[in-house]
C-alpha cells in the first residue's frame, strides 16, 4: 500500500515534468529549436496569474487570462530569440533563449520580489482516500489538466487544417513550404502553443509548489531529462517517461534514502543517451549529406 502511495505521488510530479517537457517537444518538432527559458515562462505565467487573482479576477477567468499571457510570452520568445537565428540557419537561439529567460527571471525578481508565495485555488487540498491511497483534488486537477491539454493539442494537430500544416512542417520543412505552407507562421504557432503549455503548467502546479522566481529551476532540469530520454519527437512518450521518472524518484528516496533522490533520473539520462541517442520513443533521423 505504501508503494502504491509513493508511486502515485511521484507519478503526479512526473506528469508536471512531462507537461513542461511537452513544451520543449512542440517547438522542437517544427523548428528543431528549444526554448531554454521555458522554466521562466512557467514562472512568469504563474506570477501573472497570481497578480490577476490579487486584482480580484475570479479563478475561472484567471485561467484563460494566464494562458493568453503564456501564449504572448511564447510568441515574444519566438520573435525575439528564435526567428532570426533560424532564418540564418545559426544556433544563436540557444544563447538567445537563455538570455530571454534570464531577463524574465530578473524582471520577476524586481516586479514580484524573491519570496515564495502561496497560490490560492478553489480546488480543495484536503486528501481523498482512494483504495488506501491519499490524493488531493489539487493533484487530481494537475493530472486532468495535463491530459486534457495534451489531448486537445494532439487532436488539434491531427484534425484541423492548421494542425496538419504543423505536422507537415514537422515532417519536412522544405517540402511543406513548397506546398504553400508558411513555415515561419507554423513555428510561431508552435511557440505560442509551447507558451500556452508553460502557462498551464504554472497554473496547475503553483498551488502545490508555491510561486517564486526559482519555482521552475528544479522542474526544468527534470523536464529536460524527460524530453531527452523520451525523444524530442514523441508527444505521448514524454508522458510515459515523465510518470516513470517521477515514480522512480519517489521510490528511490523511500527505499534507498532521500539523499539519492536525484540519482535515478541522471542514470536514466546517461543510459538513454548511450543506448538510444534519439530517445526511447524517438525516431532515428535520416540525415542526408
Amino acid at each position, binding site marked *: 500500500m505504501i508503494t502504491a502511495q509513493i508511486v502515485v505521488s511521484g507519478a503526479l510530479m512526473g506528469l508536471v515534468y512531462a507537461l513542461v517537457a511537452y513544451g520543449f517537444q512542440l517547438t522542437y518538432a517544427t523548428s528543431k529549436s528549444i526554448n531554454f527559458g521555458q522554466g521562466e515562462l512557467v514562472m512568469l505565467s504563474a506570477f501573472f496569474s497570481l497578480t490577476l487573482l490579487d486584482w480580484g479576477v475570479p479563478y475561472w477567468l484567471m485561467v484563460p487570462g494566464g494562458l493568453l499571457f503564456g501564449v504572448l510570452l511564447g510568441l515574444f520568445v519566438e520573435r525575439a530569440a528564435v526567428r532570426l537565428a533560424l532564418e540564418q540557419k545559426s544556433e544563436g537561439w540557444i544563447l538567445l533563449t537563455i538570455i530571454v529567460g534570464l531577463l524574465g527571471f530578473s524582471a520577476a525578481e524586481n516586479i514580484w*520580489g524573491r*519570496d*515564495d508565495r*502561496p497560490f490560492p485555488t478553489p480546488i480543495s*487540498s484536503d486528501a481523498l482516500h482512494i483504495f488506501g491511497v491519499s490524493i488531493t483534488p489539487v493533484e487530481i486537477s494537475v493530472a486532468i489538466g495535463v491530459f486534457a491539454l495534451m489531448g486537445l493539442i494532439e487532436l488539434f494537430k491531427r484534425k484541423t487544417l492548421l494542425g496538419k500544416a504543423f505536422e507537415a512542417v514537422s515532417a519536412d520543412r522544405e517540402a511543406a513550404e513548397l506546398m504553400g505552407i508558411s513555415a515561419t507562421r507554423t513555428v510561431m504557432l508552435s511557440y505560442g502553443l509551447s507558451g500556452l503549455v508553460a502557462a498551464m503548467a504554472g497554473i496547475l502546479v503553483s498551488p502545490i509548489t508555491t510561486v517564486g522566481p526559482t519555482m521552475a529551476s528544479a522542474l526544468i532540469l527534470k523536464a529536460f531529462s524527460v524530453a531527452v530520454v523520451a525523444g524530442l519527437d514523441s508527444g505521448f512518450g514524454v508522458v510515459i517517461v515523465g510518470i516513470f521518472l517521477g515514480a522512480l524518484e519517489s521510490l528511490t*528516496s523511500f527505499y534507498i534514502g*532521500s539523499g539519492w533522490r536525484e540519482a535515478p533520473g541522471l542514470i536514466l539520462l546517461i543510459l538513454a543517451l548511450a543506448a538510444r541517442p534519439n530517445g526511447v520513443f524517438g525516431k532515428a533521423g535520416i540525415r542526408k549529406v
Partner: protein
Amino acid sequence: MKKIWVVLLMTGMLISPAWGADTIKIAITGPFTGGSAPMGASMRDGAMLAVTEINAAGGVDVNGHKMPFEVIERDDEAKNERGALIGQELASMKDLSGVIGSVNTGVVLAGDKYLQEKGITKIITPAAGSASMTQWSKAGVKDLSIFRFAADDAIQSAMVVEEAMRRGYTKVGLLFDSTNYGVSGRDDLMNQIKTQGNKLQVVATEKFNIGDKDMTAQLLRAKAGGAQAILIWGIGPEMAAVSNGMAKIGMKVPLIGGWTLCMSNYIDNAGKNGDGTLMPQTFIEDPITPKAKAFIEAYHNAYHVTRIPSPVSAAQGYDAVYIFAAAVKQAKSTDTHKIKAALEDLQEPVKGVIATWNHPYSKWNPADEQTHEAFRRAQVVMGVIKDGRVEFANESDRKQFIENAAK
C-alpha cells in the same frame, strides 16, 4: 578613455561618502531578499527601529558627547559567497564600530573570519546554528570579537527534544534540509536525544533539498516507522511542503522544530496545516508587557504591517542595537576593540523588549562558548501556531514572562 575616467570619478564620489567623525558607524547585514528574507528584513527593521529611537534622542553619549548611529546595510542574499565578500568589505573599513546581523549559518561561517582577523566587533543575530560559535572554540581562539544574540541551536534542540518527551512520545521522525543549518540541526537533535536519556527512538532520518516540494516519500518512511512527531530543521518554504505533505497522507502528528518555523513563509504556505506546529521562540508578538506593546505598535506603524514577518528576528535586532549602544557608552569610544571589551563586561543592565539583559556576555573562554552567548534557556519559550499567528504554547510560560517583566 576620458569618459571612463569621468565615470570612475563619479562612482568613486558616490561610494565613498564623507563619514563625519561624530557618528557611530555600524553595518547591518543579512538576507533582505530570498527565502530567508522574512528573518533578515525583520531583523534589519527591528534594529533600525532602535537606531531611529536612539538617534531621535540625540544619539549615544560617548564621553560626554552625543553621537548618532550611522548605518550601512549589506544584503548577503543568504549566499555564502556573498557573506565572504561582505565580510572582506567590512573588515577593510577603518572607522567601522561594529556589525550586527546574519541569518544563515553558512554565511556566518564564510564571512566572520575576516571580521575576527581585524578584531571587528560583531553581534550575530538571529543566526542560530551551533557552528557559528563552536568554530571559534574548536580553533581555540584566545580573543574573540564575535558575539551572538540568538537562542543557539543547542538550547533549541534541547527544548524540541524536551517537548517531545513531555508529550509522552517515544518514536519520532527526523527531517532536515541539506544546508549547513539543517545538517548541524540534525546532529544537535541526535546529541540531545542521547544526553536526555535516549528515551526517543528515531524511526526515520530523512533529508530534503532546498526547493523540494514533494515530501511524500520521506514522510511515509516516518509514518511507516510509527513516528508520533516529526522533529524538523530547515527553513520556511520546504517545511511548509512537509506540513502540506503530512496533511495529504493523513499524518496527524505535530511538527516540532527550530525557531524558523515561525517564519511567515512557513505560516502562509502551510495555511491551516501549520496549526499546532511547535517551536522555541525568544519573542512572541503578544503585547503582554508595556515594553512589548510599545515595540509591536512601533513596528506596525513604522512598516505598515499588521503582523511582523519574523517577530523573533525583529525583537532580537532591536535588543542587539540597545546592547551595542550600551557598550559604546561604557567604552566611551567608537573604537571597535574598546566596544568589544565593554561588551564582555557590561555594567549597566540593558532594558530590552525580550528581557532585561544583565551582564549578557563575559570574557571569551575558548572552552565555553556560553561566554559570548547572550541567551540562556530561561529567555526562550515554546511557541505554537494558531490560525496563522505564533502564540505561547504553555500558559505558564506567558505568566512567567509577565512576572519577569514586572520585576
